């Protein structure tokens, strides 16, 4: 790809800052560039192209640089201006290569790039030629994920670029009706949940909605959730855990009951000496475990006495035979 350019001095007033045809940057601040250009000048001139049929220029490369120049009060700047003849597809490719050469794209930028490339290329071409350059697997599944993200509302894209929504969560949210999606988005920016816990909450809400024939938005408006979110004391991580626990109890009522029953039962058993009776994982099968926590050899003797007591405990015997 060879595109002819000339270096010219361009008036900032002649640049159409609203045209985003080639702008791939999303969720990045121009502040570092303001500082750098303020001290050293604009070392790499932005690349512009004349807007078709108009007297203005579109930014092909260097949107943040132009923003920084504007903030610094420049009225004109050196730019490389693309000569007539270059196609839109070539200019988009230039814009992408210009950025990919020195930084990794965030998921919103990857998605935006894919969305725009599809104006000029087939899906197969984008998958095989561009997804690897964008750091994605060359598979249709990855392309579909990008398209889902590209179609998200602006505030969700901001949350994704800012890290409060995980990329996997964003692609799952994109599959939901808008009301449900925004309800989950509002939850995720109200509490702190890791990527895996966000995925769990989305899945749990989806299951509850499907099972109970409710909208996710209605589930998240439940009194229990509202109380958790409105409480003044817990921090965002603690609130996130409380929401998860509340949803899990709704999703797994029998398991939750079983866990509570077992916890109540275990309290009645001898437990001195750091001895803890653990149920079978997922209450599957009949193998129980005893955990002993100790830091000194001497404390093991106390634990041994507790284990001995458990081995003769009538309550435990009955539970092992009949269940708690």
């Amino acid at each position, binding site marked *: 790809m060879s595109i002819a350019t000339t270096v010219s001095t361009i008036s900032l007033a002649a640049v159409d800052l609203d045209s985003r045809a080639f702008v791939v940057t999303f969720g990045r601040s121009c502040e570092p560039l303001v500082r750098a250009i303020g001290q050293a000048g604009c070392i790499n001139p932005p690349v512009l192209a004349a807007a078709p049929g108009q007297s203005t220029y579109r930014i092909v490369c260097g949107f943040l640089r132009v923003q920084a120049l504007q903030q610094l009060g420049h009225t004109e700047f050196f730019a490389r201006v693309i000569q007539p003849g270059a196609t839109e597809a070539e200019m988009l490719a230039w814009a992408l290569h210009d950025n990919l050469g020195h930084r990794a794209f965030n998921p919103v930028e990857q998605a935006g790039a894919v969305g725009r490339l599809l104006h000029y290329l087939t899906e197969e071409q984008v998958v095989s030629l561009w997804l690897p350059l964008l750091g994605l697997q*060359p598979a*249709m599944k990855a392309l579909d994920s990008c398209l889902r993200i590209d179609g998200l509302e602006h505030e969700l894209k901001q949350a994704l670029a800012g890290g409060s929504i995980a990329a996997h969560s964003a692609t799952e949210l994109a599959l939901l009706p808008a009301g449900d999606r925004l309800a989950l988005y509002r939850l995720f920016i109200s509490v702190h949940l890791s990527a895996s816990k966000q995925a769990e909450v989305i899945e749990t809400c*989806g299951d509850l909605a*499907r099972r109970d024939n409710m909208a996710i938005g209605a589930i998240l408006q439940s009194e229990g959730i509202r109380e958790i979110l409105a409480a003044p004391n817990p921090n965002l991580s603690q609130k996130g855990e409380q929401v998860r626990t509340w949803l899990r109890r709704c999703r*797994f009522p*029998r398991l939750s009951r*079983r866990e509570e029953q077992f916890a109540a039962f275990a309290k009645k058993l001898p437990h001195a000496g750091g001895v803890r009776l653990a149920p079978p994982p*997922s*209450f*599957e099968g009949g193998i129980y475990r005893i955990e002993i926590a100790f830091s000194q050899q001497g404390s093991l003797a106390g634990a041994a006495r507790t284990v001995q007591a458990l081995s003769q405990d009538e309550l435990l015997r009955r539970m092992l035979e009949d269940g708690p």
Partner: protein
Amino acid sequence: MTSFTPEHIYVEKQAEDLPLTRQVLDRCPGVPVETVPSAKELIAALQKQREDAVRGKKKLLLCCSRGRFLDACPGTQRYRCCGYMVLTPGAGCPLDCSYCVLQAYLNNPLITLYANLQDMLEELESVPELRSGSIRRIGTGEFMDSMALEHLTDFASFALPFFRSRPGLVLELKTKTVQIEPLLKLDHGGSYIISWSLNTAGIVAAEEHGAAGLAERIAAAKKVIEKGYRVGFHFDPMIYHEGWEQGYRAVVEMLAENIPPESIAWVSIGALRFMPQLKGIAQRRFPCTRIYTGEFLSGMDGKMRYLQEIRLEMFKKMAGWFKALLPGVFVYFCMENELSWNTSFGSFPTSNAALKDLLDQQLRQ
């Protein structure tokens, strides 16, 4: 239900002149046929495409199997398994059950028939356990419906001479269809057991897309029994849903009313269980299904299973109904643990080999 006719047939070059390929193509006049140099490369190319576009259950691949045709059932770890052997003359199924594990298990999105069946017979001839009689039960229903493509393949007729030459060895043909006509004319000599997967009428209607109705399946079982076949029934997967109790009881009652107990070789029971990745795939393909919203937890084998107390609730009822309505019929669990066995049947096979022996014994009756 109607017989499956593919919309498109891929033929691997190497399989082009094999008898099964010629036969299938003769029976699918007007269907576009595309010869491909390599099935493996075709599948790899299809995997790059959108799942919806290729997993449409409308395309058939005729190719050569490079692997073994006969293998041990994958079973599962840490649960009791029955030592079943799986024969694989193809993979994939034109029926579309929302719970089908093949949605997540198979990489190949095409309904596939292996045309090098002569190689299959040669392999079977060479298996020492088949000669010695230590393998007694083989089935073709693991990776496909045994009868759904029979109108194209005549597999039962093709394989019969081999199985008839091995007294004591049985091939189980497991299906949700009623395509039994090809079986009715066979001089089977007891070499085949014809089995149906059964579920409640509600699950059949809502989740087993393209399969025959419940009453149709039982009527088909009656027909094959009239031709001297023994039959099997598989309540697998049992699904905990609204009305499950009345639903499953009604099916057991239908069996008791229609099927002579002495014609039933075995009945298996198993609750819905699945690899974790199946849920997402199935819910995308079947947006209305609710079956994955049960209380599933990771089991000892890493598969998702209903909370044990839910399974026990279903199993105890089923075991009780069979005991009351079809006493003497051999009922066993597929991939269950000691607690399920003891709670439902009051006994637990001491090993997988012991369960295998129990099932093999049913063949002698």
